[in-house]
């Protein structure tokens, strides 16, 4: 019998023994389960599937306070289920393990307390863990008691709770007022583990809060800040990473503490070096680098100068990279290439674009998204767009395929990259059209999701930019006049704006293209007119006025149609024209667009120009323009001059 018992450690048998009435058998089974699942994700998932978690939690819940071994083993097993596996965290939380784990923190046996604290820390490392209500007085008291404990695992738990749950400025303030900053700084001098968890929770307390940052910077006459500065050079990689992340958070809100070029370069270089580290540190380092340089051109310039970009590219070329790290590197590269042309040039010269396009087919959605964002960033280079460097099958085909990705976020990211790529000045847009791109964009422009709709229309707008006649007709055939008209009147103003910009590009170029807005009883033109009169968002009106202006650069019939929309006869002269409102308005772009429209309506040489001039004058448009000769916007001022010069040719320039 003993032989069969020891070999019978398959999950179903062990679970059966967990339910045994015999305490020794139960304990042995618990220990065996715990040992099997530590560091083994597959085993964890298999036990979770078999329903082991509720059994283990039940053992913890029913064990007596003096039953140390059972308490320790069950708590440890629960922690292990929750470690690094979301399904495990969910299972543990679903069967109510939380209060039982908190209960054993007051057990007289230190080892039980250790096990409970460690297990809770595992849970608090997951986003799925419930938010701990720091603002509730009793809970705050309890949190402080954890932080003030002599037990290292318990203080660690306190710090982890803060890292997980401190989000609002009110929570940050309460913690700060309770002296938590000071306590965490003291813990920085403790063990390696205490130092790391303290660094993380300090970052959570100061994040986006200049008041708390100031308090921290003045703590111990600046010694706390200097202490973290020292940790940036610590011999332990994780400590270096966390110290760099802390300074990123400080620098975001209070750049004065991150002024020195030397310090900035040091942070960038350390984070790049950390890429070489195994496991979590190496995985998180590129994300930390991405946050450090995000939206900060001076940091990006510095990163370029210290060769961060080429190091990242070389790393990318080394061979297969673990998914998380690959995602991070792609994001760091996208930040680096987001603003500076020399970064984009170097990126392209390093021949890594093919590695990035390969990542478009990665199994993980996060990596596919990061690859799209990276391509979006690099394709902001007009210099390379103009050379037609991006619009090739190697890039376009996988991006188009991502338009029907099961993840909406991937679709949105792919649309972002496509929007840039299709700007292409080299008349090679046919490559995109030939691989079925238009059809997918049109489908997504009808999506119920407004973000997808917006990005799809945006891509169509850029594709329509300088497109040839056949290309324009192809898009319209797929999109249809009625869909385009409804997009102009979409509930989302940002979509209206892009749809109008699309129409603006449609009616640019060959005069014949203007006819499209008059087909099907002129529903597009009517929608444009309606938006110009009714839209509340300035950007929508600007694009609407440019549509009218481009149409007014067409034939007599086109010009008259624009007149009809600007000075509708049904208004009977009683209503002030919308164009006067725009000319008198505060937005210089809208004033400029409106003046262009008048310039085109009164363009010399067209037969009806003089008559249109007379009607515009009667409506008060010309006299309004004459008041604008000193417009503060240079663009508007000079176009006013053009309009007035043109009007002079009609012989009677008086208003």
């Amino acid at each position, binding site marked *: 019998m003993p032989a069969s018992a020891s070999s019978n450690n398959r999950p179903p048998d062990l679970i059966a023994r967990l339910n045994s009435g015999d305490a020794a058998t139960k304990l042995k089974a618990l220990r065996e389960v715990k040992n099997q699942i530590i560091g083994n994700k597959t085993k964890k998932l298999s036990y979770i599937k078999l329903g082991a978690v509720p059994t283990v939690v039940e053992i913890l819940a029913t064990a007596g306070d003096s039953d140390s071994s059972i308490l320790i083993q069950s708590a440890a097993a629960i922690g292990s289920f929750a470690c690094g596996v979301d399904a495990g965290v969910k299972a543990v939380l679903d069967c109510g393990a939380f209060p039982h784990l908190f209960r054993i923190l007051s057990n007289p046996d230190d080892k039980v307390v250790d096990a409970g604290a460690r297990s809770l820390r595992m849970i608090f490392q997951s986003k799925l863990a419930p938010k701990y209500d720091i603002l509730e007085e009793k809970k705050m008291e309890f949190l402080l008691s954890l932080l003030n404990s002599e037990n290292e695992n318990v203080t660690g738990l306190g710090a982890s709770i803060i890292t997980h749950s401190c989000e609002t400025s009110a929570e940050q303030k309460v913690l700060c007022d309770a002296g938590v900053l000071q306590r965490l700084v003291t813990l920085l001098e403790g063990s390696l583990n205490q130092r790391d968890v303290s660094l993380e929770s300090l970052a959570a307390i100061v994040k986006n809060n200049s008041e708390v940052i100031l308090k921290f910077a003045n703590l111990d006459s600046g010694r706390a800040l200097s202490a973290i500065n020292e940790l940036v050079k610590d011999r332990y990689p994780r400590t270096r990473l966390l110290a760099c992340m802390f300074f990123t958070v400080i620098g975001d809100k209070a750049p004065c503490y991150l002024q020195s070029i030397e310090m900035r370069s040091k942070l960038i270089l350390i984070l790049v070096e950390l890429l070489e580290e195994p496991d979590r540190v190496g995985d998180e380092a590129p994300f930390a680098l991405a946050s450090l340089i995000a939206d900060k051109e001076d940091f990006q310039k510095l990163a370029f100068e210290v060769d961060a970009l080429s190091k990242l590219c070389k790393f990318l070329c080394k061979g297969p990279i673990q998914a998380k790290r690959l995602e991070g590197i792609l994001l760091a590269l996208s930040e680096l290439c987001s603003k500076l*042309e020399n970064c984009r040039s170097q990126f392209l010269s390093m021949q890594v674009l093919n590695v990035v396009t390969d990542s478009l087919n990665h199994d993980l959605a996060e990596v596919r998204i990061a690859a799209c964002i990276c391509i*979006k960033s690099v*394709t*902001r280079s*007009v*210099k390379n*767009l*103009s*050379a037609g460097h991006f619009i090739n099958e190697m890039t376009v085909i996988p991006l188009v395929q991502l338009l029907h990705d099961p993840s909406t976020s991937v679709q949105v990211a792919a649309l*972002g990259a496509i*929007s*840039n790529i299709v*700007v292409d*000045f*080299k008349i090679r847009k046919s490559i995109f059209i030939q691989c079925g791109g238009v059809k997918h964009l049109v489908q997504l422009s009808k999506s119920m999701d407004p973000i997808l709709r917006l*990005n799809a229309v*945006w891509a169509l*707008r*850029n594709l*329509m*930019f*300088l497109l040839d006649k056949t290309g324009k007709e192809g898009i319209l055939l797929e999109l249809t006049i009625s869909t385009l008209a409804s997009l102009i009147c979409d509930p989302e103003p940002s979509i209206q704006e892009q749809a109008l*910009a699309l129409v*603006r*590009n449609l*009616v*640019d*170029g060959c*005069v014949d293209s203007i006819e499209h807005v008059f087909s099907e009883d002129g529903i597009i033109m009517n929608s444009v007119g309606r938006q110009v009169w009714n839209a509340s968002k300035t*950007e929508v009106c*600007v*694009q609407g006025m*440019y549509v009218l*202006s*481009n149409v*007014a*650069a*067409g*034939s007599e019939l086109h*010009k008259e149609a624009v007149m009809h929309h600007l000075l509708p006869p049904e208004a009977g002269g009683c209503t002030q024209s919308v164009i006067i409102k725009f000319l008198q308005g505060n937005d210089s*772009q809208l004033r400029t667009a409106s003046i*262009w429209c008048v*310039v*085109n*309506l009164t*363009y010399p*040489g*067209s037969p009806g120009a003089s008559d249109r001039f007379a009607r515009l004058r009667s409506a008060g448009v010309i006299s309004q323009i004459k008041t604008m000769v000193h417009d503060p916007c*240079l*663009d508007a001022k*000079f176009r006013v*001059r*053009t309009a007035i010069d043109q009007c002079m040719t009609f012989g009677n320039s008086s208003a």
Partner: protein
Amino acid sequence: MGVLGIVHIAFAGTQNVSSLQKDEAWRVNVRIQGCDLDHGYLCGTMEALNVPLADTPVVTFWEGEIVDTKNYTFFTGKWEATPEDDIRHWSKFPSFSPLLSQVEADGGKSLDLSNYPNIFMRWKEQYFVNVGIDCGLTIAGFYYVCFSCCDGSINGFYYDPNSSPFQKLELKSTNEGRSGFSFSSYQLQ
């Protein structure tokens, strides 16, 4: 790049190889493709149509430095152009004369040009778009450019110590056969 995106503008005109012989002029089309005022950056393409040594029109991509006195001053400081070369070329533009004394003093660093009716730029061709480098043309030099905000005209002088001096570029905005002015636009994400 503004929130409303880049407006695409086309210009057409001529470039004279020699200031004496008008008949040597070739036709030029210029398209503005990108603009980033924060960095004083402008770029586009230039198409030379009847170049004597080339079989086809030659298209080049150029990048421009806008003399905004923040990103760039009137002094080039590169491309083999001395401050004397700079002043000699800028002085060819009548609208430059009110600025001359200040430019002589500090390159124009202290000038506020944000309301000036002309925009001064340097355009440097970067690569040939449609032909090889053996097309018979050189892009070694660069253009001193003056854009008139009033009439939308562009004048320029090509500078290359190894080419004929003061080759003049004259461009006017074109409405490409339309009865008025039409603009398309793109917006990068």
